Each structure stands twice: as C-alpha cells, then as structure tokens.
C-alpha cells in the first residue's frame, strides 16, 4: 500500500518493514506506541494511510525520481490526502455557520477561560520531555526516542532534577553557611514599552523597585558567542516554559508560589541550620507545591476538559488509588507504566493547540489586545531584545481566569476541526512549523498523528466500555460516525478532495482530527468527547500513580498543606491566584 503523506520509510510495504525489524511504526511502537492506554495493538489496528493509485508528493518536497513527479499536475494535485484534509480544516463551512449540530455560533469556549490553555501546556511539559521529532521519521535519533520525565506530575518541569543537579532555576543562598539552594528565582521586570514613562527605543532598562514578576532570565557576558541585545537565556529547569508570555508568566507564578510555601514552612530553620535540614525543607516545600498542583490538575483542569462520565470514573479510580487499589475498569493503563502512549502525546493532547486565540487582553494597561505573535515573541529564544519584560506586559490573571466578577476573561477557543488559517495553522516562524510545506504547528500535529505507530480510531472505539459507546451515536454507530465525518468534509465547495478521498478519511480518520471532531459534535467544542477524554484520563491516572505514595499517600504532606493554607488548600487556579495575591498584599506588593 502506497502511503502518500509520509517519508520513504513509511511507504515501505509493511511485510518488508517487519522483516527489517526497524520500520518506523514498529520501532516507535516499541518505544512509545505500543504502550498505549488500550493495550498492545495488532498490525491491522495501526493507522496505515489511505490507498491511492496516484503518484503523489507533498507540497514543497522534491520527488525522489522522475516516476514520482505528478503528471502535469495543477498545484492542487501535488498534495496528498492529508494535506487536503489539513486545508479543509483551515476553512469554515456553510454547515459551521448554520449551526446545525450544537447550537453555538461563537468561537469562544465558555467552559475554558484562556488561562487553562497554558496551564494545560505546563501540564504537558510535566508529562513529556523527549528530544526526537517523530514527524521526521527517517532521522536516526528517533530510534532512541524516549520520555525523560520519570516523576510525572511532580513538577519536574519546574524543579528539574532538584537544586543539586539542576541549580539554574534556584537562587544562590544569601550566605556561605549553607550551599543548599531552595528558593526559586524570579526575574526583574523592565520599564514599560509604551506610555509616558516608557523606555527609549532599543533600550530595556529595569523598572526600579518593581517586584520581580517574570521568570529568571540572563545574558551571560562570559560565553564565547556574539552578544545579542536583551536577555537570551532563561534560568529555568525546562526552557519550553518560555514558549509564550502567558506560559512564562504562569511559570513565574509557580516559582513565586514555591517561595511563599517555602517561607511559610521554614519553622525554626536558620542560616546556621545544617545543609541536610535545608534540603529536607526544600523537599517538604516541593511536595506541598506538587500536592496543590496535582489537585488543580484533577479538580480544575481535568474537570473542565473531560467528559463528565469519564471524569467521574477518574475520580473513582483516584479514590480507589488512595485505598491501595490500582485498577479501574475504565482505564487499562498498567500501574507501573512509565511511558506515554503516542495516541496521547502525538494526537489527542494536541487538541490544546486548537484552544489558542488570535489575540488576548493581557492586562488593563495595553490599549488593545496583544496578538498571539506578540505573546509568542516575548521569549528569550525568539526576541531577547524585548526583555526584560516591560511592566506593561505583565499578565493580569483576572483576564485569564474567572477571578473578578466584573471582568470577563479571555476565553479559549472551542475544540473543533475547523481551526482556520491563522498563526497556529500557517505560521512557520514563531511556532516550530515545517518551512518546506509552508504550514504551521497544526499541520505538524496532523502529520505526526499518523506517522508513528498510532492506533486507528475504530480500534480505539472498539475498546471503550459498551456503556460509554452507548452514550454517543458517533461512537456507538459506525455508519453515523462515517456519514457525519464525510458530511463535514464536503460541507464547503472549496474542500479540494478528489474522488473517494472524503470516504477514505471518514472510514479511517486520523486520531488528531477525530479528537477535534468528536469534541465538536458531542460536546459543542466545550470539552473533549468520550474517546479523547478516556485517553487523557488514562494517561493522567497513570502519571498521578507514579508519585502518589510520596504526595497524596503521605499524610504529613496533607497535614502540612492544611497548615499552610489554614484548611483551605487551593483546588483551582483562581483559588491559587487568590492565595498568591493575598500574600502579595501582605508583603505590600500590588496584587497583579
């Protein structure tokens, strides 16, 4: 079977690939793919592309041989089935505007204020850290693909391997008695970019006396490379957390939160206390911070994201876990499973890119909403000359969460497959897109979701509990599912599909596409559908189990948290932000 959308290795006949023993699907399956939430996959349960007699190459790719060149093809005919599906996803349709399915017209998602988009990204960074770009399937390093996160959902993305191994995010102790670093660094901010007291063009001086509210950044004068203006480096355990202004501000929030808890739990410690005592203080603090983080993941983020029935099952599973029972019929993830299934990392959880807005009200200072481009470029990697961050770009969280009844926060986008042609679909500069194809990160999401030993949607649905399938016509009735997908694909005259392509996609949709489609059809785009929810819940449950014995399973952690928060342990992001704002007020700092 010829696979029109993949590199040479993926186009090999499966039998030959198996003979070689290292074909991509099998190779990655060994590392990632076979460890999915539904048990081992048979070969016919893996996505294998679409049959075609055509000789097709992808846009921007040179054909390997003259035989593969399209014959006098018009531009449209030089793209493959998946490229045409992607183009369909960048279009609206009459059907969308006529509001046939869910009764909504607006793109805004009332269930997900925009801050959750970036908290979901922070959570992703705490679940997965690997270096191999699986989209580039012919690269040697893919053979070594693995997930370097071992203590998942224990905030390794903030703490790294701790102050001894990952000292950069930790402040040096103020004296020489102890060498244990336990306070997380915060970055000072610069003068406003606009307004009467703005900095001169090209200069980014600090704002004297303003509290440190950014992530820690630096520009080292003692290294060899040519100096660039601004702050080129982050002092973070995970520099991915500087991916955008909102994520870096959220990371700074967790640094500050850690320091508040650190001060609240110092007890009788002094600068003369032993290094061991200081290190134990750090560990106690980290556990309390992780305890709160994990509560927020479950009680706030997942409660909003997941289908309510699946969420209820997750709650039961977690309750069982607290009593030492490591099983729940909804999820078959092995308790000791350390890996992340590709169905999660390379398909379902990519739904979060759909939540990204084209612009955001950042605070009450900026005169107009900041575009996603402006938010992405305020990072050390992209535009260090814009740093230190101006005070007029500090995030006011009441614009991102339901905190102030008088302020309507930015809302995330609804989860649906018509994501339009904006930055996430088409920009190849700010996001890591594919410059060869001229497409952005969502194109990469779609392509990656079919090229790494991914299960088919049908095979995943087949493993759902019958009671769940009975709750959704889309899942319970294959004919309805396929007809609905086909209708949507063809709902605009500009779809560009060739004969039979819409049917082929409807018969065997990529999981990434189906995740968005299911959410749109069954949940009005406000949350994930049952299949997407089940995969996310399974992975989260598996991750939570890893450190459960030393966090929720340790009664001293819960008792210490009760003490720090006077019995009102934050369980939502608004509660956490309110707690931090209260502490700022106590310190005499502005709340935001």
């Amino acid at each position, binding site marked *: 079977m010829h696979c029109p959308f993949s590199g040479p290795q993926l186009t090999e006949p499966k039998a030959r690939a198996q003979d070689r023993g290292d074909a991509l699907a099998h190779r990655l399956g060994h590392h990632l793919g076979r460890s999915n939430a539904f048990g081992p996959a048979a070969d016919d349960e893996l996505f294998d592309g679409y049959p075609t007699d055509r000789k097709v190459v992808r846009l921007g790719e040179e054909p390997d041989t003259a035989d593969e060149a399209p014959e006098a093809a*018009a*531009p*449209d005919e030089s793209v493959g089935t998946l490229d045409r599906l992607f183009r369909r996803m*960048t*279009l*609206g*349709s*009459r059907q*969308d*505007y006529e509001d046939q399915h869910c009764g909504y017209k607006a793109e805004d998602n009332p269930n997900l204020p925009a801050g959750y988009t970036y908290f979901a990204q922070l959570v992703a960074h705490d679940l997965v850290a690997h270096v191999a770009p699986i989209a580039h399937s012919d690269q040697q390093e893919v053979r070594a693909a693995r997930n370097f996160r071992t203590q998942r959902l224990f905030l390794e993305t903030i703490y790294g391997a701790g102050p001894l191994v990952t000292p950069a995010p930790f402040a040096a102790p103020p004296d020489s008695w102890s060498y244990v670093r336990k306070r997380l660094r915060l970055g000072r901010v610069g003068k406003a970019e606009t307004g009467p007291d703005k900095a001169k063009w*090209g200069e980014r001086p600090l704002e004297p006396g303003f509290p440190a509210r950014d992530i820690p950044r630096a520009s080292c004068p003692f290294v060899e490379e040519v100096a660039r203006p601004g702050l080129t480096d982050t002092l973070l355990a995970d520099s991915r957390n500087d991916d955008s202004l909102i994520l870096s501000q959220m990371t700074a929030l967790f640094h500050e939160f850690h320091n508040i808890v650190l001060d609240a739990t110092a007890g009788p410690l002094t600068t003369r206390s032993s290094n061991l005592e200081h290190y134990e203080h750090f560990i106690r603090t980290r556990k309390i911070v992780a305890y709160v983080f994990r509560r927020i993941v479950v009680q706030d983020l997942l409660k909003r994201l997941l289908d309510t029935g699946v969420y209820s099952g997750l709650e039961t599973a977690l309750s069982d876990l607290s009593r030492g029972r490591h099983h729940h019929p909804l999820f078959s993830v092995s308790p000791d499973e350390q890996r992340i299934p590709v169905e999660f990392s390379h398909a379902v959880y990519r739904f979060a890119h759909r939540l990204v807005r*084209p*612009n955001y009200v950042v605070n009450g200072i900026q*005169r*107009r909403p900041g*575009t996603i*481009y*402006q938010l992405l*470029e305020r990072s050390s990697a*992209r*535009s260090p*000359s*814009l740093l230190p961050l101006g005070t007029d770009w500090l995030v006011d969280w009441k614009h991102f969460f339901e905190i102030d009844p008088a302020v309507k926060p930015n809302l995330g986008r609804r989860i649906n497959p*018509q*994501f*339009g*042609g*904006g*930055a996430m*679909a*088409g*920009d*190849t*500069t700010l996001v890591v897109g594919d*410059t060869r194809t*001229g497409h952005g990160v969502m194109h990469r999401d779609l392509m990656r979701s079919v090229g790494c030993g991914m299960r088919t949607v049908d095979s995943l649905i087949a493993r759902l509990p019958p009671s769940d399938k009975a709750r959704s016509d889309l899942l319970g009735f294959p004919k309805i599912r396929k007809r609905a997908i086909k209708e949507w694909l063809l709902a*605009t*005259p*500009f779809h560009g599909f060739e004969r039979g392509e819409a049917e082929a996609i409807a018969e065997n949709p990529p999981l990434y596409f189906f995740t968005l489609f299911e959410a749109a059809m069954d949940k009005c785009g406000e949350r994930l559908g049952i299949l997407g929810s089940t995969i996310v819940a399974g992975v989260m449950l598996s991750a939570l189990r890893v450190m459960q014995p030393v966090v929720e399973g340790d009664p001293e952690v819960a008792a210490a948290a009760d003490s720090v928060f006077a019995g009102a342990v934050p369980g939502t992001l608004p509660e956490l932000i309110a707690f931090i704002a209260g502490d700022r007020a106590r310190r005499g700092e502005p709340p935001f």
Partner: protein
Amino acid sequence: MTEFIERINILDRQAFGRRVMEWSDGRMPIPQTLDEAAQQLEGIIAFPLPSYITKLNFIKTTKEVWTIKIPPADMLQDTRNRIADPNQEYHLDPNYAKRVRGDFPDDLAFFEFRVGDYTCSLCT
C-alpha cells in the same frame, strides 16, 4: 464624543496575505459571495463583518495595468478623526516594529504579512 467607523477585525494579516496569494495563483478559487469569503477566511478575519458591508469586490489585475485603488473618503476622514483624538491611536501592526528590530526571521513571512496588510485595509 466622536463615533468612529467600525473596522474589519483582521485576526492575522500574514495568514490573509497567504490566502491572497492563493487567490492570485489559482490555488484557491476567489469567493463569489460574502458567505464563501467567510468559509475561506476562517480564523483569519473575524466574522460577522461590520454591518455596513453588504457586497464583495475582488480586483484581480495584471502587471500591465497601473492599478490605483482610491480609498473611500469617509474612511480617510475617520482615520484623521482617530489621529486627532488623544484617546485613540494610529495603529500600526506590531510586525513593523518587529521588522525594524530585526526580529522578523523570515523575509517570506514578512512579505506575506505586507501583502495581507495592503490588500484588505483600504489604505486607511
């Protein structure tokens, strides 16, 4: 208090530029109606458009024709009014500042942005 004319909300000028290029070279058919335009501009332009817009006019030209698009007088005056109002601003897309800073890494991307900016803003 001066009332200003509501403008088309362009969510992504660079993406709009890419779409214009597709209309130019035939990769995408030129919309014939506002509804068709809405379908092709999902996520690029905010819909619904201002209510005063009721028609669509594409001008596809060639290099042999010197095409000078005359902007509407009321829109020009509206921009003058905005500039005169201390509570308003003459907004330039931040991509221009980014270009001046040298932070726009890709000439092609900047070209796409300029095509988008010049094509749909009525020079106002």
